[in-house]
């Protein structure tokens, strides 16, 4: 079965199944203002048949996260204008983001002006832990509003954090996301690069369980390497699992506790 494309000039044509995939999303993305306000319009990828009588199908073709992405782009421009590189640091809870940051600030804090944007569901415990460790500036964004709390930072939350940071005084901003392997990967916040910290206590199979996160990360810091002798963790198997999901990821074996790999991580951050 062919797939129908509706173009801005109102013409339609069909593609064979398969060849249109991927193509249509990019080429039609800018059509979202176009309204196919004719009853019975057969829209792109419409598997449900024609709309019922009494309804009009309107093409939207807009990315689900486009609202977020608009704000993320604005954040990115604000960072760019101030000459700040931003890294979105993600991991599951307890993987060692904050400890790694502490080490990072100790290593780089003297030579680089580093800002930290802490995403935390309800507390400022992580920010407190980093107090006095060499950050030029810090802002905490709590994702909770009343009960519960968002499991990730989105672009709007980061915008609020950025407004409280002296961007012009900074060279690097590390955005410590909420500990979670699922959601943070989906929300662009205006960063230049995404990095993740992974603790070897989490097991070898997580790249397959959380592929979005592992695919999003440019760098995977494999943390808690000092525990390797005490665990059944199969490092080779984990590394090949990472490669299967994200062949281009740079992997840094590290221990925020002993300092192993921290130099390599800092070198990447400096040039990120």
């Amino acid at each position: 079965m062919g797939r129908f494309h509706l173009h801005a000039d109102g013409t339609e044509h069909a593609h064979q199944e398969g060849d249109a995939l991927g193509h249509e999303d990019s080429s039609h993305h800018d059509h979202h203002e176009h309204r196919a306000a004719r009853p019975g319009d057969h829209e792109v990828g419409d598997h449900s048949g024609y709309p019922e009588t009494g309804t009009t199908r309107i093409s939207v073709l807009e990315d689900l996260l486009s609202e977020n992405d608009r704000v993320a782009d604005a954040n990115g421009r604000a960072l760019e204008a101030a000459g700040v590189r931003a890294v979105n640091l993600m991991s599951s809870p307890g993987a060692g983001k904050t400890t790694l940051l502490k080490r990072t600030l100790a290593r780089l804090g003297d030579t680089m002006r580093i800002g930290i944007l802490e995403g935390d569901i309800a507390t400022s415990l992580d920010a407190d832990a980093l107090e006095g460790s060499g950050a030029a500036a810090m802002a905490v964004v709590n994702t909770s509003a009343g009960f519960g709390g968002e499991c990730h930072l989105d672009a709007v939350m980061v915008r609020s954090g950025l407004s409280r940071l002296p961007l012009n005084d900074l060279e690097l901003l590390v955005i410590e996301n909420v500990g979670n392997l699922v959601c943070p990967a989906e929300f662009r916040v205006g960063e230049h690069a995404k990095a993740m910290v992974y603790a070897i206590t989490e097991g070898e199979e997580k790249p397959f369980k959380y592929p979005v996160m592992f695919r999003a990360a440019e760098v995977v810091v494999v943390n808690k390497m000092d525990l390797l002798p005490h665990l059944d963790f199969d490092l080779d198997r984990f590394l090949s699992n990472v490669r299967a999901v994200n062949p281009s990821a740079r992997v840094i074996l590290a221990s925020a506790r002993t300092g192993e790999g921290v130099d390599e991580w800092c070198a990447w951050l400096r040039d990120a």
Partner: protein
Amino acid sequence: VHELSLAQAIVDTTTRHADGRPLKSVTVRIGHLRQVVPDSLQFSWEVLTERGDLQGCALVIEEIPAVVACGECGAMTTLDMPILSCASCESFDVRLVSGEEFLIVSMDVVEV
């Protein structure tokens, strides 16, 4: 976990496009690599559209399988695991053809 946020994003974008017109349904297209649980998204949608402008508007979810094209042998593989490799020759030199879709496709407006 983040389906509620996604449902809210769909509500926001749809409300903007609907511009006050009553909606019967909204169709979204989501690739299998996006870690979205359709039932959970559906549930979140129902909660968010219990009242307000989109009350009673249905959410139609089109799921798109993850497919890779092999750079070595040219075969197409539909993935059942997020392992980006070719099922024919086991090469990792593959290009993602589909599976990352995250699109609000269309909406059906009730004619009044």
